[in-house]
């Protein structure tokens, strides 16, 4: 059967998919945190700039981001980006807009009273943030952050169109290789099932975290 | 279906009970909330239903309105058996007005729209005549000036009076009230009770669950004391309040009428807010 022959290749593709979305998520988290903090800043100009960033990247399809980084940045800076690096950057930037919303929401969920209570106890601002605000905010951020990961993972399937050989592209290549149309269909279904199961599992884990943190509060 | 409409006075002319409950049993899973309930309501009667929290008073009203399945016995309204899943249930519900503790006004509609929605959509009344009648009802509940307000802009007492107008708009043969004043601020309770008293004076048939003992005594023709899934005592309100025959009735009445008794009273009656006897 076709899946036995190519199952290994598909799983390898899945590994690459998971890896690239992990890297992209890390990039998204770092950039998103900075933008998110900027969005809650008391400086108007920072808030406006950060909001513009979020709005801009949220208004761009993933495919456009991928083409831009892979072709546009390469041309603009005369550098050579592999599809892997390009996909990571594109998905990471895309995710950073989502993450900035998550971070902002988390930070704003911590009541003003918490901050004031901590400040009034004589803690310096950095300690207030580190010991009082963020520990509470991160709990709120975690479930939607899992959502961002799932969305990044789904977006990574588009990286096939810049020739990055992840799960989707592996499936397409295998499909080219097999002669039979039905086998081709089977391969596509297998790819769909793998994505669905993996994302479902991650989403469920996210929902679990959310329930747990709800009980804890 | 306008010919379906009977005024309360027509109903009073008939001799048979408007509502007949025979051996009603209501269970939620394994717990039997109503174990055996049998009584009749005659046209024009105001029946007050009292009892400690959790004895199934609300559940009973919901059964009468077919909002709950029943597990035994019969509920007969105007000669027709009430069954939650029977096709005639909507026709029966039209004839029964229900007032909820939390008003349940439709938040997206103004007061007058709340009142006219069912007459227009269910009774196929023309919007104009429905609106005209609604304005009459608003005069009755003394809310003419609030007709175009949204529920979110009204006080609880105003909302509850709109809810009463909404129920009246269907010209129901029976009005059921489920603790209509317990969610209200004390200062608005009186307005709602005054409207209810007027309805009783018009000769409407009413089934009222309430902890307002002064109202029950003053307006009720009959009082049923429910406890543990049964009607423990049934008689004129003054009788039950001043001269209860049953121990449990006495305990309950004491706890409601004499707050200090509730303090040292039994655990099950302490759930009744002690301040209501004052009115």
């Amino acid at each position: 059967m076709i899946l036995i022959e190519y199952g290994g290749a598909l799983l390898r593709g899945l590994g690459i998919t998971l890896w690239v979305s992990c890297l992209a998520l890390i990039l998204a988290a770092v950039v998103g945190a900075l933008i998110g903090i900027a969005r809650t800043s008391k400086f108007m100009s920072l808030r406006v700039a950060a909001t513009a960033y979020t709005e801009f990247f949220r208004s761009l399809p993933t495919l456009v981001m991928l083409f831009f980084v892979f072709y546009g940045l390469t041309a603009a800076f005369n550098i050579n980006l592999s599809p892997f690096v390009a996909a990571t950057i594109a998905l990471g930037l895309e995710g950073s807009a989502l993450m900035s919303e998550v971070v902002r929401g988390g930070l704003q969920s911590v009541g003003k009273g918490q901050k004031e209570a901590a400040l009034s106890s004589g803690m310096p601002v950095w300690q207030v943030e580190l010991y009082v605000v963020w520990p509470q905010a991160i709990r709120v951020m975690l479930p939607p952050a899992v959502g961002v990961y799932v969305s990044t993972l789904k977006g990574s399937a588009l990286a096939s169109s810049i020739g990055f050989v992840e799960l989707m592209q592996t499936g397409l290549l295998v499909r080219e290789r097999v002669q039979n149309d039905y086998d081709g269909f089977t391969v596509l279904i297998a790819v769909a099932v793998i994505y669905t199961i993996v994302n479902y599992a991650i989403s469920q884990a996210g929902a679990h975290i959310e329930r747990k943190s709800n009980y804890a509060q | 279906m306008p010919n379906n409409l009977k005024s309360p006075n027509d109903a009073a002319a008939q001799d048979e009970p408007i509502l007949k409950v025979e051996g009603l049993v209501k269970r939620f899973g394994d717990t039997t909330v109503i174990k055996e309930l049998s009584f009749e309501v005659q046209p024009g009667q105001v029946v007050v239903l009292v009892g400690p929290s959790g004895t199934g008073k609300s559940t009973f009203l919901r059964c009468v309105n077919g909002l709950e399945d029943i597990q035994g016995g019969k509920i007969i309204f105007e000669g027709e058996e009430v069954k939650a899943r029977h096709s005639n249930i909507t026709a029966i519900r039209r004839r029964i007005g229900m007032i909820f503790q939390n008003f349940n006004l439709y938040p997206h509609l103004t007061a007058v729209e709340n009142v006219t929605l069912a007459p227009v959509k269910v009774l196929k009344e023309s919007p104009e005549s429905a609106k005209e009648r609604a304005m009459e009802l608003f005069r009755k509940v003394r809310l003419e000036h609030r007709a175009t307000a949204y529920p979110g802009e009204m006080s609880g007492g105003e909302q509850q009076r709109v809810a009463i107008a909404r129920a009246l708009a269907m010209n129901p043969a029976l009005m059921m009230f489920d603790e209509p004043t317990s969610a209200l601020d004390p200062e608005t309770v009186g307005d709602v009770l005054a409207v209810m008293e007027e309805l009783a004076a018009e000769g409407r048939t009413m089934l009222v669950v309430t902890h307002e003992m002064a109202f029950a005594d003053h307006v009720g023709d009959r009082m049923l004391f429910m406890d543990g899934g049964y009607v423990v005592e049934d008689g004129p309100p003054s009788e039950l309040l001043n001269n209860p025959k049953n121990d449990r009735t006495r305990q309950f009445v004491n706890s409601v009428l004499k707050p200090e008794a509730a303090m040292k009273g039994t655990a099950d009656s302490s759930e009744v807010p002690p301040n209501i006897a004052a009115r």
Partner: protein
Amino acid sequence: MYDFYLPDVYPYLHKLPAALWVTIEISILATLLSSIMGVFLAIMRRSDSKVLRGVSTTYVEVIRNMPLVVLLYLIFLGLPAFGIVFSGYVSGLIALTLNSAAFMTEIFRAGLIAVPSGQFEAAQSQGMSRVTVYRYVILPQVLRTSYAPYGNQVIGVVMGSSIMMIATIEEVTAWMYNTGAVTYRYFEVFVVAGIVYLIVCQMANVARIMIGKALFKSAAAGGKW
């Protein structure tokens, strides 16, 4: 430093309006169709029948977790194995619609859950039929709570419509790619396409706010309704 040179792109700008129209048209169609599907799936989710509930839940969970482009490949490349051949446009529309319907279902379901059960009961107690209860009491309230997430989903559909390119349809993303490929001005075409998408999304936002104001009276002020 890169020298930004837009004029190379000018000869291809005349193709942009048609491409933009495809993006808008497909987004509107997919939004409408998926909204209808979403309403039915959300109501199914509340049905007394286990089967209907199961179908709706399974649909949402499967589609939500499957990348849109995978769905498109299944329809565009996979189905022809069974003699079922759709044009690129139709394939893309089906994929977008099926995908968006799952999200619409979730949005409407959340809106339904947010309506207190007392609303159903009050309406039922007035003798309204199920259809009347939903039409005049429940749906207007669902509309209000679902409105903001619905707007986001509409923008999600616009974003998703870029996969049409994979089904060989010339929409904005395809215009960007193709124009970039002939002019090598990838950076410039990105700027153009980015601005186009930004404008489309912002216009959708403005429309959402204006329609919302008209629908919900003082909704923006957080007032009565």
